């Protein structure tokens, strides 16, 4: 009960802080939109490659961009942890009888919220520019669930890194050097069968790809829901493992104060 209440208080704090940074807010929402429209226009003709298997690139691309946005917003989320560490806010929470679990879960909830809003905007925009999602509402929900699980995972990794290294540079490096390649080592932009064999191999173990493929499958006319649910399960496992790692980082931070 206390854990729940504290999670709520801490979530509200983060959401308010987020809403108070209009530039950051605008960027978080605008960036995925720009990606969708830019990549959509740039690679429009890609569907003409024999064997691509999809008639509209924007339809193909949307789950890719939804997932990519989730990856990045999760990846950047450690920055607010660094802020809290630098300003002594975390230590103040620790000196108060704050529920320790809530200190981590209170960072997951805003992340899920951000992903849901981001995803809905992207899907709406995609529909407006001509994408079709025969999988319907159920498919869209499943895509968002997968994206949210993935963003929770990356957000936990990002927070863990922030707690261990306590430097903005480390979060920035992680986002720039890890997340972009992971996105390109998935089928976010290109049909998997057209990618080189070695990329296909790596993609099998890439959580980003799990989310893209599961989300795309769920949006198909008669998607393979066995495949979708299995991958959603992998993503849940990924999120749990990341959360455990973050918890360990949190404990090690507490020992180092």
């Amino acid at each position, binding site marked *: 009960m*206390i854990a729940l*209440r*504290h999670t709520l*208080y801490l979530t509200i*704090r983060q959401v*308010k*802080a987020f809403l*108070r*940074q209009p530039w950051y807010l605008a960027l978080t929402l605008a960036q995925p939109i720009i990606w969708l429209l830019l990549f959509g226009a740039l690679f429009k003709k890609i569907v003409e490659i024999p064997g691509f298997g999809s008639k509209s690139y924007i339809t193909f691309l949307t789950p890719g961009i939804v997932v990519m946005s989730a990856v990045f917003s999760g990846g950047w989320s450690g920055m607010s942890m660094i802020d*809290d560490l630098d*300003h*002594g*806010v975390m*230590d*103040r*929470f*620790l*000196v*108060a*009888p*704050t529920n320790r679990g809530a200190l981590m879960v209170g960072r997951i909830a805003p992340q899920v919220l951000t992903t849901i809003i981001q995803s809905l905007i992207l899907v709406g925009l995609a529909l407006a520019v001509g994408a079709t999602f025969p999988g319907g509402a159920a498919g869209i929900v499943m895509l968002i669930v997968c994206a949210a699980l993935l963003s929770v995972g990356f957000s936990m990794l990002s927070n863990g890194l922030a707690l261990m290294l306590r430097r903005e540079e480390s979060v920035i490096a992680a986002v720039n050097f890890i997340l972009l390649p992971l996105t390109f080592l998935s089928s976010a932009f290109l049909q998997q069968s057209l990618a080189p064999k070695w990329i296909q191999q790596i993609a099998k173990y890439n959580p980003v790809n799990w989310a893209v493929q599961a989300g795309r499958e769920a949006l198909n006319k008669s998607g393979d829901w066995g495949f979708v649910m299995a991958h959603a399960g992998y993503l849940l496992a990924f999120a749990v493992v990341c959360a455990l790692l973050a918890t360990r980082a949190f404990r090690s931070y507490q*020992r*180092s*104060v």
Partner: protein
Amino acid sequence: MTNAIEASGLVKTYAGKVKALDGLSVTVESGSVFALLGPNGAGKSTTVKILTTLSKPDAGQASVAGLDVLRQPERVRRAVGCVAQKSGVDIQATGRENLMLQGHLYGMRGKELEQRVSGLLERFGLTDSARRIARTYSGGMQRKLDVAMGLVHKPQVLFLDEPTTGLDPESRADMWGEIARLTAEEGLTILLTTHYLEEADKLARRLSIVDEGRVVAEGSPDELKGELKGDAVHVELASGEAGRAIEALAPLADVRDVTLEDGRLLHLHADNGAQAVPVILQALEAGGVNVASVTVARPSLDDVYLKYTGRSFEKAEATAAEVNR
């Protein structure tokens, strides 16, 4: 009288190397202001972190408000308020939001919390800026908010880690008034750390001088100053004849602890400063030394610090700054 804080033999080593505390002990009487005085790196913040359960000692024991910090950390947290050196104000939130969240985390709600928060805002002169984001507050206002946050849940013991460092003189005087009021009117026990001798002298009933993780002297400001018998005499030399001046003073029975600063300032102690001055001047004149000025003063905590650590306070500060860089 009961003790609000009892800690003994605290040891804390960071990252296996830095020995932050080396057997520090401290006892604070309920309802009083106690100061830990020491230069940067002495171990003051580490002591506060241990007493507020943020950090665990490697050895030693401590109780606050009668509760063991290691065995009953949850209950200690409810009994203490803490204003850390690093602040703890969420600068993205308004003053009111900061206070409300703090109260919520201690399980306060509804009208009770609203009233408490409004009362604190009023008391610290923050009512008009309560709806502004703390980022826009001046340093003095942020520090006041900080203290108010430490008080929301009505703690029995308040820890203030360097509450006036970095404040302008006016804000500092404000804060001193506030601290004095807290113990006088509410019977709060306060442990404050400071590296301002003047602050400890002014606010604390008792104080410990901390150096390299240990207490080197403990007592009331007057007791500590009293241990230095007599008055401090400062002689400013007109020109660089320091060697001859020291020689000239050596035979005087009444004069002790002659030290030289910057080659032209002599510090010494005499049982009775007023009587010693003519004798000192005569001896210097006889030795052919020209004097620019002489002052006599009651010993300060500065002198106490010098006696116990063998370094002047400013020197210790400068060294600590070097080491921490």
